[in-house]
């Protein structure tokens, strides 16, 4: 169906102003943050901006009867092409559907539409002394719908885990347009083991099974205090060892972040005023909770880590903590400063490895960088073995671009070899699905059978998450 006819049909379901059919409008939905999208143009045939479950249902009924692919999209902040129309079709931009329908304080939960932005939800919840714990680095723009679809996590996953732990139920529009509610239509219980856990099936399903239109979230009491210990290491091996020491002492920090020597160098070039000490690695431990507990745990961490670190600084001062987080926060942007006129790319950027092999992973990624002739900066959530690698390349050098693709592939294969995963929190999309069989074996085929059962026409976000071919 050509773009204009498709738009005309969609305008029978939604008001005309919420159907974008112009070529320029559609082009502006051809990207996300991925490296892959830099060199491929995935222009949808139409973009719609639904604002009700009935509208989404109408779109799905139409798409299913005409066999048109449908791709749900949040803020488009992902790195995997997950929200791009790689097979054409309709993009559902859900990011403007951003109402917080209810904060049920007495039942510790919130009911939201998919477009609510993460930090705005937490700003709203703060008025009730509550928060939604998963803490992605993209908090300023990512939507709750996108977080659920990708099972996002972030800096504080060490203690609070990923999004899946906080989803009590979902409203989902199925590929045929029918609407289901997982977790029970009237269920506000925090515990529920009745039936197959369909909620968890949809969390992290990256839009291949249905469209998430409403989310019931579990929320938690907001911690009263936070503190940070920054430890500086002369040896890279000592940093992961120090993390294990802290765990073994019975302390569970809310976040443990690592910057390797390249990340430290990049930060100091980009923002000299942050002035991080030159070192092989820096660890940032964050603890949260009640003030007395935070103080005790922070001092204990400092004492334990000091045995391996060159220096440790413990602080609960808000300004100082902001400074220290800033050092971690600017790495992503600072990476590009290691090579003037080059750009940081998102490729091979999210592997997850066993804690016991983090050091090995960091060293081998550096080796791979040398092998492929690509500058790499490593940082990440060492507390749960999630390593973020930032390759820095000249995007206009096609030969270097090809080498970067090779590097990303090698990093993904390294993760599997080390007993880890190609992605800790960013998802699979269209850039890591080629590793699905290597990662999941026969389970990948069960995933395909689930997909076929729920979406026999394969119209929901085709070409994502599952092994390519024969979907």
């Amino acid at each position, binding site marked *: 169906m050509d773009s204009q006819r498709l738009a005309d049909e969609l305008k029978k379901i939604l008001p005309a102003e919420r159907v974008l059919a112009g070529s320029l409008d559609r082009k*502006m939905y051809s990207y996300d943050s991925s490296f892959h999208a830099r060199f491929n143009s995935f222009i949808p045939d139409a973009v719609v901006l639904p604002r009700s479950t009935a509208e989404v249902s109408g779109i799905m009924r139409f798409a299913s009867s005409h066999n048109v692919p449908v791709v749900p999209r949040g803020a488009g902040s992902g790195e995997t092409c997950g929200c791009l129309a790689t097979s054409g079709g309709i993009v559902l931009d859900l990011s403007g559907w951003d109402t917080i329908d209810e904060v049920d304080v007495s039942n510790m939960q919130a009911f939201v539409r998919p477009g609510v932005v993460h930090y705005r939800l937490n700003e709203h919840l703060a008025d009730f002394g509550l928060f939604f714990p998963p803490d992605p680095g993209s908090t300023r723009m990512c939507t709750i719908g996108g977080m659920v679809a990708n099972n996002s996590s972030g800096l504080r996953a060490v203690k609070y885990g990923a999004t899946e732990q906080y989803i009590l139920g979902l409203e989902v529009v199925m590929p045929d347009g029918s609407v289901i509610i997982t977790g029970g239509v009237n269920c506000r219980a925090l515990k529920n083991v009745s039936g197959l856990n369909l909620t968890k099936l949809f969390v992290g399903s990256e839009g291949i099974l249905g469209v998430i239109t409403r989310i019931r979230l579990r929320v938690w009491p907001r911690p009263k205090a936070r503190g940070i210990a920054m430890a500086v290491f002369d040896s890279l091996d000592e940093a992961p060892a120090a993390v294990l020491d802290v765990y073994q002492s019975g302390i569970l920090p809310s976040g443990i972040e690592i910057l390797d020597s390249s990340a430290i160098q990049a930060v100091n070039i980009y923002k000299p005023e942050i002035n991080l000490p030159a070192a092989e690695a820096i660890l940032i431990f964050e603890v949260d909770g009640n003030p007395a507990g935070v103080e005790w745990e922070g001092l204990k961490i400092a004492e334990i880590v000091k045995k391996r670190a060159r220096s440790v600084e413990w602080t609960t001062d808000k300004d100082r903590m902001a400074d220290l987080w800033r050092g971690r926060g600017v790495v992503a942007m600072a990476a*590009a400063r290691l090579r003037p006129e080059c750009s940081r790319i998102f490729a091979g950027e999210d592997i997850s490895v066993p804690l016991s092999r983090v050091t090995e992973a960091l060293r081998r990624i550096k080796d791979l960088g040398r092998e492929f002739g690509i500058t790499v900066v490593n940082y990440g959530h060492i507390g749960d073995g999630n390593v973020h690698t930032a390759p820095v390349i000249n995007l206009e050098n096609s030969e270097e671009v090809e080498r970067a693709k090779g590097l990303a592939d090698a990093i993904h294969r390294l993760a599997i070899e080390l007993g880890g995963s190609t992605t800790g929190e960013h998802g699979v999309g269209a850039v890591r699905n080629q590793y699905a069989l290597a990662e999941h074996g026969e389970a990948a085929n069960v995933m395909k059978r689930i997909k076929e059962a729920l979406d026999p026409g394969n119209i929901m976000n085709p070409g994502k998450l599952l092994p390519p071919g024969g979907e």
Partner: protein
Amino acid sequence: MAEDLYSLKEHYLRCVRCGQCRSVCPVFEEIGNETASPRGKVFLAHMLASGELKADAEVAQKLSLCLLCQACTKECPSAVPVHKIIMAARSQLAREMPSPLQKLVFKDIWTRPSLLNFSSGLLRGCQGLGLTSLGRSLGLLPPALDLTGRLPSQPARNFIKEITKAEGAPKMRIGYFLGCTTNILFPNVAKSTVSVLSRLGCEVVTPRDLKCCGLPQAENGLIDTAEALGSFNAAAFRRLGIDAVVTDCASCFAALRESNTFKGIEILDLSQLLNDLLTGHKLKKTSRIITYHDPCHLAKAQGITDAPRELLERTCAGFREMPGADNCCGGGGSFSFYNYDTSMGILDKKISSIKETGAAVVATCCPSCIMQIRHGLLKSGQNIIVAHPVELLAQSLQ
């Protein structure tokens, strides 16, 4: 001010399209879809520069949907100067598909003070005869025409002398850049600026032949015109010999500071200068509650937020912050004329913030913001006064 688009390649290539700019863009918030996002405009600029996209009216319309408020530039984790890229893209569009209307307004009229005066006189006359109201009520004239409000009887240039002597021994010889909006729409601001500076011991030099600062031209892609205006104005100040230049317009201030043509001439922030000059002075404080709106060209472009507040606190007993004081008011120079409805949506939020403070006066250092906020207050029937801090200071000094 504006640069060549291709020279910004390193910057637009650095955009990883993460979308963090969406979180702060007032235009995106109002329009609510990706086509209005700052990263989307960087994407368009990139395609325009690489030749993947041809200049046309649709591209121009998309790129016009930016206030150049710089909120995205400040927010960008990859330090991409989004506003510069958009200005450069507009400049490329102006070269590839020149708009006769833009040329007429911003090059042929706006660069000639006599024609600008004549045009404003014409508008004043039409307003006086009720023709604009009639045209508006018949739907023949756009609502954006209401933005200027009723023009004052005469521009400031008619009564500001080229040299205004200092009261007492002169401490410094200060150049006063009298901007177009202050001159035509807010002559009382100009009068207050000159009188306050003079009373505080400055000899004030207001060159007779000053032209526009060049910002409206640069924002509309006419870089060469903007540069020529900058050179002309800088020469006027150099000729008359001054210690430094001040202006009561945040937009002119940013334009002068960022202009290469003003290199070597010190451009001082008016609020900071006044705070320095007021050291030791005791002022009569008003009991009215005053709140302050940060103009984007002062707060985001130049990082000046404390000095105006310090100045206001000298003049009032009850200063009260508004939520989101540095959120754009939706004016954005010619933005509100091109995109009136979007601009009004952004303005509504600003008016709500102002109302929340319960203030009797909202102060701001930019005549364009004064114009915009005054329009919003009038539309929503609020009895709140909009004033420039220098006007409030002039009252306190009396």
